[in-house]
């Protein structure tokens, strides 16, 4: 495997021991198309880190570069302290987006094979496979061939195979796609459990809710670029909190205190709803003006921006629309798998 070093971005002067993954200026081109264009990512050890973006944004290519499956054309990467990720493959667990196992293999053999690839002796891999299949409620499927399992079960077998060697870093590419709601919940628990035992989890997703619920940090990726990478709270704080105000009357001198971009929705009874970003000066001067102007405050709420709003603000409307389309598409796929249409 390549060393992942290419001009013009080289290794940083100081290497942080707290980072499980550090990538600077990763670039990858395929046949003249730039798939990933200068991606920077820093994943702290023990964190749950999400790579959020629509299909085609460059998520998979970025993960493949981080894992050493492909080498970047430019840029620098360091994974678990080494620039040669394949040298430490035994410390990494990887679940690709396109799941795949040998159909003729029995479930426990398939897991043992994946373990053997990561350096676990075959006998030990078989033993662990049986234990983990029992833990995941799949003990009855241990002796069944992969082709005899439902798509969801096969996916779980592969997930067990990803974790069988107790990796320090777990990389999951779209792990929730194809799973029904129950299994998505189980997977969320599992990911939290991995982080709790000290493993670093990096996963890609096009579902904002997953990233928002689970991640300590996210990288928002769109068009091969990462316009934001950092804590979820920081992403959300990029937007001013949103104010939702309900007044008994819709007009009066107090309106001058509202921000210029406030949107108004007047109801039949004459009451009005106002939506606007919290002004820089805070809520107190606004409240004072509303009270003194007899606006008749019926309700007032201040909501912190969600990750979705942050995504729209950071990546743009088009990327957000693509993300939504991907989510709907995935839901259809997920529903199909619930009804067992994905047997192989």
């Amino acid at each position, binding site marked *: 495997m390549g060393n992942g070093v290419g001009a013009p971005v080289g290794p940083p002067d100081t290497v942080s021991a707290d980072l499980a993954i550090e990538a600077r200026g990763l670039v990858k081109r395929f046949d003249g198309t730039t798939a990933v264009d200068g991606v920077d990512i820093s994943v702290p050890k023990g964190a749950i880190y999400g790579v959020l973006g629509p299909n085609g*944004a460059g998520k998979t290519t970025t993960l493949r570069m981080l894992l050493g499956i492909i080498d970047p054309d430019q840029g620098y990467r360091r994974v678990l302290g080494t620039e040669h990720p394949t040298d430490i493959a035994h410390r990494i667990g990887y679940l690709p987006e396109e799941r795949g196992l040998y159909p003729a293999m029995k479930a426990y053999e398939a897991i043992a094979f994946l373990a053997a690839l990561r350096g676990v002796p075959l006998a030990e891999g078989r033993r662990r496979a049986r234990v983990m299949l029992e833990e995941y409620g799949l003990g009855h499927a241990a002796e069944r061939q992969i082709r005899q399992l439902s798509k969801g079960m096969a996916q779980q077998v592969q997930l067990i195979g990803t974790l069988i060697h107790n990796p320090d870093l777990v990389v999951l590419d779209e792990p929730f796609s194809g799973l029904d709601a129950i299994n998505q919940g189980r997977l969320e628990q599992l990911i939290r459990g991995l982080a709790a035992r000290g493993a670093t989890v990096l996963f890609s997703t096009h579902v904002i809710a997953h990233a928002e619920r689970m991640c300590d940090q996210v990288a928002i990726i769109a068009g091969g670029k990462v316009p934001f990478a950092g804590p979820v709270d920081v992403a959300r704080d990029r937007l001013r909190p949103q104010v939702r105000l309900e007044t008994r009357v819709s007009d009066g001198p107090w309106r001058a205190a509202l921000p210029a971009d406030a949107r108004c929705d007047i109801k039949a009874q004459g009451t009005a709803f106002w939506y606007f970003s919290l002004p820089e000066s805070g809520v107190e001067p606004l409240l004072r003006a509303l009270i003194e102007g007899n606006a008749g405050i019926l309700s007032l709420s201040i909501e912190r921006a969600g990750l979705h709003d942050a995504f729209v603000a950071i990546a743009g409307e088009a990327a957000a629309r693509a993300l939504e389309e991907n989510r709907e598409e995935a839901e259809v796929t997920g529903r199909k798998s619930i009804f067992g249409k994905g047997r192989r």
Partner: protein
Amino acid sequence: MLAERLRAAQVIARRDFVAVVFSKAFIFFLLGPLFPIIVGFFAGMIGASVQHDLDRAVIGIAMPAHQGDQLLAAREALIEHMPGGAPEMAVIERLRPGETFDARAALNNRQLAAVITGTIDAPVLTGTPGRVDEWRGVVGLFAARARASDAAPYPDVRTDVVKTSASHEHNGQVITAQAGQLLLFLLTMLLAGMVLSNLVEEKANKIIEVLAASIPMDALFMGKLFAMLAVSMVGIAVWSTGYGVMVLAGARSIPFLAAPAVGWPAFLGLGFAYFAMAYLLLGSMFLTIGGLANTVREVQTLSMPATMLQLIVFFMASFALARPGSWIEIVAQVFPISSPYAMLAYAAEHRGVMPHVIALAWQGLWVMAIVRGGSMLFRRTVMKSGPARSRRRTAVPA
């Protein structure tokens, strides 16, 4: 690092070996060589029958009075001195004085290949150009014997038999070399093609990405190559055992071959080593080519040029065998793909082990180089983009 690569290759080899050998399809693979034998047997029977019919064609004799019988007697007297045999002859007409015979019309009889007319002093042979050219000498010989009624007896030839001669030994070794090359070619052709479709399974099952993330790609290539080599060895062992059983059962005898220059044990050992090298060299090329294919259909398309390549290599090595010391022999020995064939022939004709040690090292080096290059090419092309769904929708890699 090397130990880790070998361990990874062993994991892949074990998986592939078990998957192939314990599959139902492997039974058909083992039975594969039976089909050409069965087809050959029936084709041989039909051919023998046709040949038998053809061989019944005789030379008809239409001569005055007893001259035809004299000619037949001369044939009988001479045939024991003619190891190649003589054509069948039969008197079809004993002509009265002044009677004529239409030889051309007689050839309408399908049993007659040619007709002798005239007299034993001036025989006339009528037939097609090929038959006439073939038989005019022997007809003249028989006629001369028929004319000399008091021909002297042939002298008794004393013999002094030697076990072998340099010429005989060389000719025998050339035949052994040819047989060795042919067997090597047949086995390689039969077995190396399997490697072509080897990576299609991983691509179709989408497990290739997990493999690429877990182990070095050249370890994957090595593992697959050695698995298929081991599968081939199982096949060869089964076929050899089957052949041995047939020989012991008296079905047929082992064809006699002259002892090769290096001796049979060394020759068999070198044959094994050169088969492994020929297999690994061709296999690594086929694995690379097959790795670029995405479907079984593409693999089938690729198999034709692959077979042609094998044939060209074999013909080059065979051609070189007939030209010892020529530049073509050196090229065949040095060119990696033909080297195993040429060197096996060399072992049949020349003593000395050192050239083989060098040749095997050279071939091994090329195996590693092709595997390395092939795995790099595979890695560059196979993980080019994300899933097909994403490509269709966005036209950029996921």
